[in-house]
């Protein structure tokens, strides 16, 4: 046999019957295979976008949607990912953890998405992440919750596009203590998000020699807030507030009515006013108060080219409102996370040579290997450092002061100010 095979191999022009049939079959099937390869290479990369279109997160979801579409458009205009176009497949999760998990399942097993992406509210992330891990679909969240870095999720869940609440809050302590006061009263929603603020800021201000003189937890179902404000001690130097949900505007207005013209320094997280125009009637008292911003809503005097291009791409004016409607205020401090996350996904897929779901583990490893993410149009909010062990990104935080009805940045933290000890190492988990 061996001799025969060798002999025919050395005799061009002679062909056995079996070989002829084989060759014909190969030639016959070539166009099909070529067509298949072509289809594979040009098939879109499907990104399942879990979006809060209804429920408590709808205001955020609307802008997450616009930012995601803008980011995908930019990626596609630049040739897609590995030569393939990006297709965003959006599904409403109703800002509900049960529906969120169902949506992740739908992405993985019905839409055949390559990854799932986009979730903001922490309870939806935590409710969905177990299913993402079981279905082995990379789940890129844009939540700012500490859940990823705390180690309670899994290797398939990553947060590379937005910093987490622990790093944000802990980085505020030094500025507040040094510039605003050391006796702080905290007002926060009485659920996990508020408790994170309470715990991380208390620790941070105490490290600066300050103290939290009162912690006022507001029940999540509350719609009237004035009755809580008499609990603010008279020696309070700084009121720290953070609220979310549909009652935020009422909360801030009632805070202003309570204090009148004289108030302690007021420091808030912009979450209290995301998607709200700070020049709304009743918010005049905010003049001179301070806010944390994940990304400055108003274009600053030293606006970068990246910010200018990013605003134009997502359709936001210099005041942080939609170009098409100046009353439609964006969730500017958070939504950049969608833009930056998709750019991370692109970089990860290109680095890993991602071709399909079989390469999901390689994609995660490629993202885990990332460290420095320089300030660029891919990362217009600022430079960042990704921690592959904890699957969490770290970056600059901004403190702005309300000045003549707009927010002007008065302080930018360093990335080092936001770092904390690792609490987990996801790379030790098997895929």
């Amino acid at each position: 046999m061996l001799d025969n095979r060798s002999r025919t191999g050395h005799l061009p022009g002679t062909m056995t019957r079996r070989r002829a049939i084989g060759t014909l079959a190969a030639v016959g099937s070539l166009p099909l295979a070529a067509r298949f390869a072509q289809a594979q290479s040009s098939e879109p990369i499907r990104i399942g976008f879990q979006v809060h279109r209804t429920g408590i997160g709808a205001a955020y979801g609307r802008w997450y949607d616009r930012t995601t579409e803008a980011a995908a458009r930019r990626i596609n205009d630049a040739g897609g990912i590995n030569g393939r176009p990006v297709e965003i497949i959006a599904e409403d999760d109703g800002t509900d953890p049960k529906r969120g998990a169902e949506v992740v399942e739908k992405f993985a097993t019905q839409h055949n998405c390559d990854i799932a992406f986009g979730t903001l509210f922490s309870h939806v992330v935590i409710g969905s992440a177990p299913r993402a891990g079981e279905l082995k679909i990379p789940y890129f969240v844009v939540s700012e919750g500490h859940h990823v870095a705390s180690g309670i999720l899994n290797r398939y869940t990553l947060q590379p596009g937005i910093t987490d609440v622990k790093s944000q809050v802990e980085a505020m302590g030094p500025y507040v203590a040094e510039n605003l006061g050391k006796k702080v009263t905290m007002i926060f929603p009485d659920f996990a998000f508020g408790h994170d603020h309470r715990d991380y800021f208390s620790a941070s201000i105490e490290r600066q020699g300050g103290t939290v003189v009162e912690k006022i937890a507001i029940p999540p179902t509350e719609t009237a807030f004035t009755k809580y404000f008499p609990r603010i001690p008279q020696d309070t130097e700084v009121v720290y507030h953070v609220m979310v949900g549909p009652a935020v505007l009422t909360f801030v207005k009632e805070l202003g009515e309570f204090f009148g013209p004289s108030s302690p320094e007021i420091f808030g997280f912009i979450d209290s006013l995301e998607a709200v125009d700070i020049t709304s009637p009743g918010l005049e008292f905010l003049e001179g108060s301070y806010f944390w911003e994940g990304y400055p809503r108003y274009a600053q005097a030293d606006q970068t080219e990246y910010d200018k291009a990013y605003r134009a791409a997502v359709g936001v004016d210099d005041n942080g409102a939609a170009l098409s409607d100046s009353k439609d205020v964006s969730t500017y401090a958070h939504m950049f996370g969608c833009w930056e996350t998709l750019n991370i996904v692109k970089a990860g897929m290109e680095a890993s040579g991602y071709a399909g779901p079989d390469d999901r583990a390689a994609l995660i490893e490629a993202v885990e290997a990332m460290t420095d993410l320089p300030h660029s149009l891919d990362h217009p909010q600022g430079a960042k450092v990704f921690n592959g062990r904890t699957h969490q990104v770290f970056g600059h935080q901004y403190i702005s002061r309300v000045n003549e009805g707009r927010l002007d940045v008065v302080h930018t933290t360093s990335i080092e100010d936001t770092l904390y000890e690792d609490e987990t190492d996801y790379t030790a988990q098997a895929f």
Partner: protein
Amino acid sequence: MSPPAGESPHWPAVGRTPRFRSPLLHAGIILGLIVIHFILPEYHNGNLARIMVLAVYAMGYNILFGYTGLLSLGHALFFAAGMYGLGLPMHLLGATPAPAFLGGLATALVVSAVIGFLALRTSGVAFMIVTLMFAQAGFLTVLLFGEYTRGDEGFVIQQAARQVAGIDLTDPSNRYFAALTLFGVCLLLIAWLVQTPFGRCLVAIRENEERARLLGYDVLAHKLGAVIISGTMSGAAGAAYALLFGYAGATFASVQYSILPLLWVLLGGAGTTIGPFIGTVFMFYLIDLASGVTSAYMLIAGLALVLLTIFAPQGLAGELRRRLMSWLP
């Protein structure tokens, strides 16, 4: 009554008498769910596993609402009692699933006994309000003890912990059959229960409470029994949800999750054994399909509910019973 011509006088025509039709129907549903697992695509298999767990919740609700005539707006409390009764021991103490599941059942049983004892001092609208308030108190309790429950965020029950006797409950097939086991047991239990004197007394109470009392039945004891069975079954669904899908959170204790089983039962057919399952399937896929078309999918769900209320006021299974299957339990 003489048997139909051609049939043995000693052997009832299997499948044609009420005595045999009901077991055949329920066994057929369970068998169908076994077979369909090997046919359906992965996505629908996953959905069906979830639907079966939620249908257990609806079946529990149906015992109280459909068979006893007590409209509760607080069943999320029982679902959450089972969920946290299982979840907290697993999350905080490292308990294994089997004893934790029993813990979930026990928690739901105790909570439903206490709530039943207190709420049954009222009736009608007052019962609805009292159950709603108790459930809201339960929801706020979950938030209050956020240090342990992680409040609204909830907590994950890790994949590695969800193993029973070497069976990995995170495997899609294992999850499906675990859900089917619970669903099958509850379906057969209810089918049996409603045929017992206890079950018939519940129906009598629903139809005319005063007459049942005049006939000498201990109405309060029967109602309390119904609350306990209903609450414990709802708790079993909550525990199973946490175990099979790896998450427990305060959302499941919110008022929304008290309304959902009411909708499922109304759509499917209150007071029928198969109605809750039909309603849960219908509602799940209505939302799943409508959400792909519009973000106003709850409007479509609402419209469907209105239309069904107008044209099929007894729900889908209720209509089946009215038109075709008068023997439907």
